[in-house]
């Protein structure tokens, strides 16, 4: 039927998919036009998958089998032998190779006509221009830090003149038998940062317990991890993936456990505690990844209503802990979200003003009325009212001209003890 990437593919493979793509269904919008245009959008849509681990393998396979043809994948890890039970795109002979690369090649071999572009590295290596090329981003991550980073990046990328700069973020996550799938429309719906309280942090053990009266094998391992390492191998940076380092911690923990008559310290428990590993369950990954990819497919094609439309459900939680339970709801935006609430307002300024003159003008502006403002940019402290040491250090800035302190279009954050919220302004130079 069509020709892509120089490969003639038979539409036969997509026969079942075409049933939803080429005719309206009970849930399609009245003005939705099925057929050619929808199919060609699906095939040209550029999607980014972050993570090629347990969820990532499932997501890549699902997207390829849902008709997406231009998929990119980022992962910084290499394949470990312990991944092979569930990360089914990898084989014994792949151990040690980068996950993104191996996963991409495997899916390309199995699903003809799909192009998967791997990048082996950190998401933080890439900039706004890189993320701007995609239509949507699907995350299968195990770290909150990485999620917060990509979320803040996507919220910051939204540009009022260009609707396509709003990239739907589909996030999957699993922990044992539990999981969730959610869709975030940056700046329009509740973002990852708004939802941070959905993640209960791991309970920390008091340092004193670790130092004096350990009761559990985990306490001995934490002691080796936090205290013994610092005392005996100061300067060495602990690498969780270095077997020598883990063995050292294991031996230390074992000796301490013996001293306190505690049993149960093993090498794999040491690895688990240090790396904060929660057992991964293949079928939970499969369920969550399937849900994420269904949403991606529906967003790209509009065949059916999807998660994440403003003022409707955007979060699906799944629990298989006690029989089975799922609940889908709308997680509301937080007005004071540090990432998506309180976005910077444009403020035209005269760059030849001194910082003092600018501060005086803030007091007069109706929308601000800041009497004792403290101001900074990402890289420098402009003026701090307190503590005294910072006030003294930043006082000379008051006499400097704005163009010496900030650049055109740079964001400043202003706080004032009289107000609960902070103000963010993007300074635009008048008369350039």
């Amino acid at each position, binding site marked *: 039927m069509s020709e892509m990437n120089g490969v003639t593919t038979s539409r036969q493979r997509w026969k079942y998919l075409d049933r939803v793509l080429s005719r309206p269904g009970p849930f399609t919008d009245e003005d939705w036009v099925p057929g050619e245009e929808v199919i060609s959008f699906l095939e040209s849509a550029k999607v980014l998958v972050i993570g090629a681990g347990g969820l990532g393998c499932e997501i890549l396979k699902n997207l390829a089998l849902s008709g997406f043809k231009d998929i990119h994948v980022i992962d910084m890890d290499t394949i470990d032998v312990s991944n092979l039970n569930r990360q089914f795109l990898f084989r014994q002979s792949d151990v040690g190779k980068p996950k993104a690369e191996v996963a991409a090649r495997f899916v390309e071999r199995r699903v003809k006509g799909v192009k998967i572009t791997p990048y082996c590295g950190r998401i933080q290596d890439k900039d706004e221009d890189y993320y701007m090329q995609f239509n949507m981003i699907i995350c299968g991550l195990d770290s909150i830090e990485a999620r917060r980073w990509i979320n803040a990046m996507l919220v910051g990328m939204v540009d009022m003149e260009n609707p396509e700069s709003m990239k739907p973020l589909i996030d999957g996550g699993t922990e044992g038998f539990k999981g969730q799938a959610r869709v975030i429309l940056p700046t329009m719906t509740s973002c990852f940062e708004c939802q941070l309280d959905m993640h209960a942090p791991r309970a920390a053990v008091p340092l004193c317990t670790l130092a004096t009266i350990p009761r559990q094998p985990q306490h001995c391992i934490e002691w080796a991890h936090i205290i013994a390492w610092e005392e005996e191998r100061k300067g060495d940076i602990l690498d969780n993936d270095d077997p020598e380092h883990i063995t050292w911690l294991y031996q230390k923990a074992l000796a301490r456990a013996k001293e306190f008559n505690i049993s149960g310290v093993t090498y794999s428990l040491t690895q688990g505690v240090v790396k904060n590993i929660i057992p991964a369950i293949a079928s939970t990954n499969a369920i969550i990844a399937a849900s994420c990819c269904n949403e991606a497919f529906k967003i790209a094609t*509009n065949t059916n209503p999807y998660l994440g439309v403003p003022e409707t459900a955007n979060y699906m939680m799944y629990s298989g802990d006690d029989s089975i339970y799922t609940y889908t709801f709308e997680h509301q935006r937080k007005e004071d979200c540090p990432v998506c609430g309180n976005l910077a307002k444009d403020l035209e300024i005269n760059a030849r003003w001194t910082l003092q003159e600018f501060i005086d003008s803030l007091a007069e502006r109706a929308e601000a009325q800041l009497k004792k403002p403290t101001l900074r940019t990402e890289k420098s*402290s402009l003026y701090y*009212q307190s503590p005294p040491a910072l006030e003294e250090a930043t006082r000379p800035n008051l006499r400097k001209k704005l163009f010496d302190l900030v650049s055109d279009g740079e964001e400043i954050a202003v706080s004032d003890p009289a107000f609960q919220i902070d103000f963010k302004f993007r300074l635009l130079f008048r008369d350039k």
Partner: protein
Amino acid sequence: MLKIWSMVRFTSASGQKKKKVTAAQLRVQKDLSELSLGTTMRTEFPNPDDILNFTLTIEPDEGMYKDGCFHFSFAINQNFPHDPPKVKCLEKIYHPNIDLEGNVCLNILREDWKPVLNLNAVIVGLQFLFLEPNASDPLNKEAAEDLRANRDAFKRNVRKSMAGDSVRGESYQRVLK
């Protein structure tokens, strides 16, 4: 996809190419503006542009540690306030809740940390450690035993250690003003 783009309603968002003030910086900025240091504490910023790393000096004017001068390093990461600040005592001191490496056992710096707590809560906690050393939560076991066994002997040890003498074979740093 076209449908989703048509839903995009822009209110206050704008294209921002420049690096933005981070959530952690914003929160620390706020916390610093609400800090009440009194006369016994002061801060020092080695790099005034970097508000996430600074030193706090405490000079207790009452209690067993009166007239001492103690420095604490504060290192705050980009995950603040979800992660607590990392606080270390920079002097080697004799204290049941501070070990010889400078690690501090203060509940709100670890297990009881909550994002609603602020830097002021931490410095009040540190101040309190000098007024009321706590033998039931020891990090320096010997000091805790001394405090429990004989409060007066413990006080004498504190004064000795602060003068730079050794206590129970361990030498301490002179911290008297």
